[in-house]
């Protein structure tokens, strides 16, 4: 009833869209991949992720996923939960990236067909998802380098010397952790990455501001360790631990390794046996505007004026970059002032290898989408950085010079020309022209930036302890590193 029929991977940018991989889990599908692609291409972009094609026989549900330059198509001929397929496709991409390295490109798949085929075969059995945990897959399918060794040895060396390398004899008792993990250096890395999404009204009042956090974990620990990660919410250092974060972290989702009951009883504590290698431990959401009157502090703000200039055909964008508030708290590293105490990304217990103290805003860019009426931009000048006008948007990138200045401004000003303006220009009175100009003005600007060592939500990792487990020596003190990054994932300033 609910099985995934097949997976086809196409190279989107090849001159003629060629299929680079096809894998069928069930009997041969009736519709060929090429015709599926035709159907797919027939629809205008952007396409929904689930396309229904009634013209094939039998009618086909076509799930698709675009990943960088690859296009993954998966047809189904009967009812199936759409998210099951989509999640599965995402998982396939993750696993392939894990094995073949990121970014995933067509040539990598082509040179490793043997592995990809094995992986896909393990990931689903008869169309049912089977083993999808990267760690469990590592138990049954060897990564490329090992296979290469193995093949060379099959021809030359006797087999048994390499038998120890094949981990296939054992299936780990924990689905997400590989059996018999051994590392010479025990290391733990926690990356907390937040993506700020905000909408700011023309008046400057934020309409909505949210921060979507992801805790990415990279564990290189031997044996089966049992870890405890404690998160601390801002301003909670006066209160008792554990009671707070739930109020600020809303709707977290966790990797299956996290003991949910522990979180429920003591919010803020994540207790888990980690998978080996990189994984996403949890993701969460923080509302940056818990109350109506809360101020939103972002390191980059934009002021936009449209229809300025004596012709009314210019617009101006001013960018203010200020890390002052952020740096002052982070640079001290102590978190003295109550308002910003926990903002400082680099304040952490001495056990952690701390990242650099100075907060720096990077990758500042402003994207201004333009209405279709706009023909060109004339008399453009910007005080700093460079701009790039392509299609229906202008991207203005502002380089950050050195870390000395805590605040700076930059201005971008340009006039627009409207399509079909030239012939109508003479003998026309000013009012309608102004009106048309006003309609051709951009309506918003989208800010992009990234700050290392600062989290918009103010959450921080309070402690990370190994509380138990086996296979890790008593005296071993693993290196622990914590990194905080905030990125703007769509801060929209309207005007």
């Amino acid at each position, binding site marked *: 009833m609910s099985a995934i029929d097949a997976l086809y991977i196409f190279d989107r940018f090849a001159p003629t869209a060629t299929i680079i991989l096809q894998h069928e889990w069930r009997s041969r599908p009736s519709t060929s991949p090429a015709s599926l692609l035709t159907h797919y291409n027939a629809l205008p972009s952007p396409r929904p992720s*689930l396309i229904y094609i009634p013209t094939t026989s039998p009618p086909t549900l076509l799930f698709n996923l675009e990943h960088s330059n690859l296009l993954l198509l998966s047809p189904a001929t009967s*009812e199936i*939960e759409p998210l099951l397929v989509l999640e599965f496709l995402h998982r396939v991409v993750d696993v392939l990236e894990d094995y073949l390295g990121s970014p995933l490109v067509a040539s990598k798949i082509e040179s490793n067909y043997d592995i990809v085929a094995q992986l896909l075969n393990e990931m689903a059995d008869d169309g*049912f998802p089977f083993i999808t945990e990267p760690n469990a897959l590592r138990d*049954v399918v060897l990564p490329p380098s090992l296979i290469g060794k193995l093949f060379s040895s099959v021809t030359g060396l006797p087999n048994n010397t390499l038998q120890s390398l094949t981990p296939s004899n054992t299936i780990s008792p924990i689905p997400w952790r590989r059996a018999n993990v051994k590392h010479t250096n025990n290391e733990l890395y926690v990356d907390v990455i937040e993506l700020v999404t905000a909408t700011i009204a023309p008046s400057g009042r934020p309409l*909505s501001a949210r921060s979507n956090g992801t805790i990415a974990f990279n564990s290189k620990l031997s044996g089966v360790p049992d870890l405890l990660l404690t998160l601390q919410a801002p301003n909670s250092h006066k209160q008792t631990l554990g009671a707070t974060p739930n109020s600020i972290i809303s709707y977290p*989702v966790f990797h299956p390794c996290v003991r949910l009951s522990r979180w429920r*009883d003591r919010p803020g504590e994540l207790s888990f046996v980690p998978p080996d290698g990189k994984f996403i431990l949890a993701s969460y959401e923080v509302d940056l505007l818990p109350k109506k009157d809360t101020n939103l502090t972002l390191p980059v703000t934009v002021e936009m004026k449209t229809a300025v200039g004596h012709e009314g055909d210019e617009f101006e964008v001013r960018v203010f970059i200020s890390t002052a508030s952020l740096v002052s708290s982070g640079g001290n590293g102590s978190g003295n002032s109550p308002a910003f105490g926990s903002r400082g990304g680099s304040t952490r217990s001495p056990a952690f290898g701390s990242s650099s103290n100075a907060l720096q805003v990077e990758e500042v860019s402003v994207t201004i989408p333009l209405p279709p009426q706009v023909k060109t931009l004339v008399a453009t000048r910007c005080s700093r950085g460079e701009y790039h006008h392509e299609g229906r948007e202008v991207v203005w990138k502002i380089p950050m010079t050195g870390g000395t200045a805590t605040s700076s401004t930059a201005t971008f000003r340009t006039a627009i020309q409207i399509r079909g303006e030239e012939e109508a220009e003479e003998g026309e009175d000013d009012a309608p022209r102004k009106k048309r100009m006003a309609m051709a003005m951009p309506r918003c600007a989208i800010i992009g930036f990234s700050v290392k060592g600062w989290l918009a939500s103010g959450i921080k990792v309070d402690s990370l302890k190994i509380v138990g487990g086996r296979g890790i020596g008593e005296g071993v003190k693993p290196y622990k590193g914590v990194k905080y990054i905030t990125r703007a994932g769509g801060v929209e300033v309207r005007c």
Partner: protein
Amino acid sequence: MMSRGTDCSEFFADVVKNVASPTLEIKKLVYIYLLQYAESEPDLALLSINTIQKALNDQNQVIRALAIRVMSGIRVPVISQIVALAIKKGVTDMSAYVRKCAALAIPKCYKLDPTTMPQLTDHLSTLLGDKSHYVMGAAVMAFLEICPTRYDLIHTHYRALVKMLIDMDEWGQLALLRLLTGYARQSFPVVKGKRVVKKKNKAPGSADEFYSEDEAAVGEASGTQELSRDVDPDLELLLKACPLLLQSRSSAVIIAVARVYRHLAPPEYLARLAGPLVSLLRASVDIQHIALISIVSVALENAQPFSQFATHFLVHHLDPPHIWRLKLEALTLIFPYVNIHTKNLILSELEYFAQGYDKELIKEAVRAIGRCAQSETRNAARCLRVLLRQVESSDGTLVAESLTVIRHIIQQNPTAHSKTVIRLAKALDTATNPTARASIIWLVGEFSGMDDGNNVAADTLRILAKNFSSESVQAKQQIVLLAAKVYAHHLNRTQPTRPPPGTEEDGISDDDDEAQKHPIALLFSYILLLARYDLSYDLRDRARFYKSLLAVPSSTQLATLLLLAPKPTPQAPSPSSGREGLTLGSAAMVIGKEESIRGYEPLPDWVSADRAPSPSVREPPVTADSAPRSTMVATGISSKDQARSGGYGKQPLGASPKFSQLEERGPAVGVQSKSNGKVETSLEDFLASDDESEDEDEESEEESEEEESEEEDSEDEDADDDDEEDEEEDDSADEKENAQLLGGSK
């Protein structure tokens, strides 16, 4: 080559020889090859079977499992018996991994040879009693594949399954949730509680819907004894197992839980669901899309829980069309439930988008404003203000769209909006867009009969007549129509004063007299005159038609019917209404066309109380006929597996003592006792409930009857609605004939 899609079957014999290769990797690749091409070369494939069979006895569990998978995957019907044997062996294997593979082999074997069904169901029922959550997920998938309606197999395992839910991998959870949704519909009679609870919760104040389990339980306990049992305890067991799943990283699982709540649980559970569903919006676009569809379909029935998430539905500039459409719809659906502040926010948001430059977005936004106005008449005035502001804009699309929506709003409550019409008539001075002008003129015409002629219609007509020649064709037609309407009203007012026989006197010659008498008649004939010499033959035709229609007083009646017929109130339903009947999270819902998706089956209706299986069948240790094995399973679970159900699955397959000790020392201890307690209470409840069950059954029977009749009613209503819509369509066809106005309104 194979992966590229080239046909490699010519190498079949050569490849198959390698099946005995000692290296696992090569073996696997050979197996993959076999799976692909065995169908076309059944004879040669049979040669390999022997080797594979040997592999079934291999020491290594991985090889054993692989052998089962390959053997069942070779689509050669001859070997079905061998496969069945292999499955039988695999089912009792030591290793859970092998058992899992055996479970997945069952549907494959069934497809090969349907006659093996009885054997396979036996195996399946054994596997469903397995105590490893590894196996269970696969077993449930197999069950769904081969015999999704054999719920009798599930009864004894129901509670174990529910308890294991949390420990399975996400795919297993998905399958199990699907199974249990169907099972619950078939096994738990719907009872009074559903409606009673709803009322109870609404009463104390709808703002705070976040009842925790305990509060809800307390509230119910304080009620009568009957109320506290409105949800079957077993069903409640399932519902209580679900909240933790809402923290799964797999969006599919979250949607599956949403389905359980939406289709099984009393409405107050939905409140808990809203947050996690909304949080799916932070995922990638494809998942957002499906999450939004689910949110909208839940909100169509019950938008209250989503009201606090208004800011999540703000449309972002980068959203593709299929996303913002749904977001706007969600905004309008929650609109009636939010506080005044958020209402302002939503309206200004919609207004902002209405002024954008994406034409589609403008249309959708204006329509959304219209829906907001419809959903609550109190807000209509406000929405109208917003829309009227748009009318003066210079963007044609926006004006046309907002006028259509304004017309909808006005038609809903014509008497209250006479001022609006005047305002619109004023807007005629500034509006330039032909469609907009035409639309306004039509509206003015519609209201020309109000207050016995003391309105702006005639005046508007006078002004319009001045510039008749410079109007667009569309507007001219409307002006002619307006003139006809005004004149018809005028005739209607003046005629009753005359004696009926007097109609004979009214000849064509009389028309001139009358025309001299009253400016309206003058105006009418003036406009007809203008229209007569117009370029457009359509317009000339119309003018002639109205002239002859209104010239003869005997046909005034007819003209009144034709021109002044009351127009039915149009309803603009939410774009995805109609989807809410489909099962949440199914492909059919995403596509929105139920009939055409193969394999889509609506959820079974709630079973009636008399046909529901007695709760005792789900009582593994108590039922006499249950095999000792299942008892073992049950006890095994209650003694051993608490650590798992709380502490999330650390039980190793070959349990190493050290590790399990660790588990016990660990934080899971508190949880152990908790889950233990839960088990006990539910058992006690059961034993106690046996006595009362009869009474309840009767009651619930009545209840379900009531519900049925109500459902019928609502269906009737639906049908009525449809009729109305049809009428509207007919009508709009008429209107098109008259006016060619409604082209954009559908």
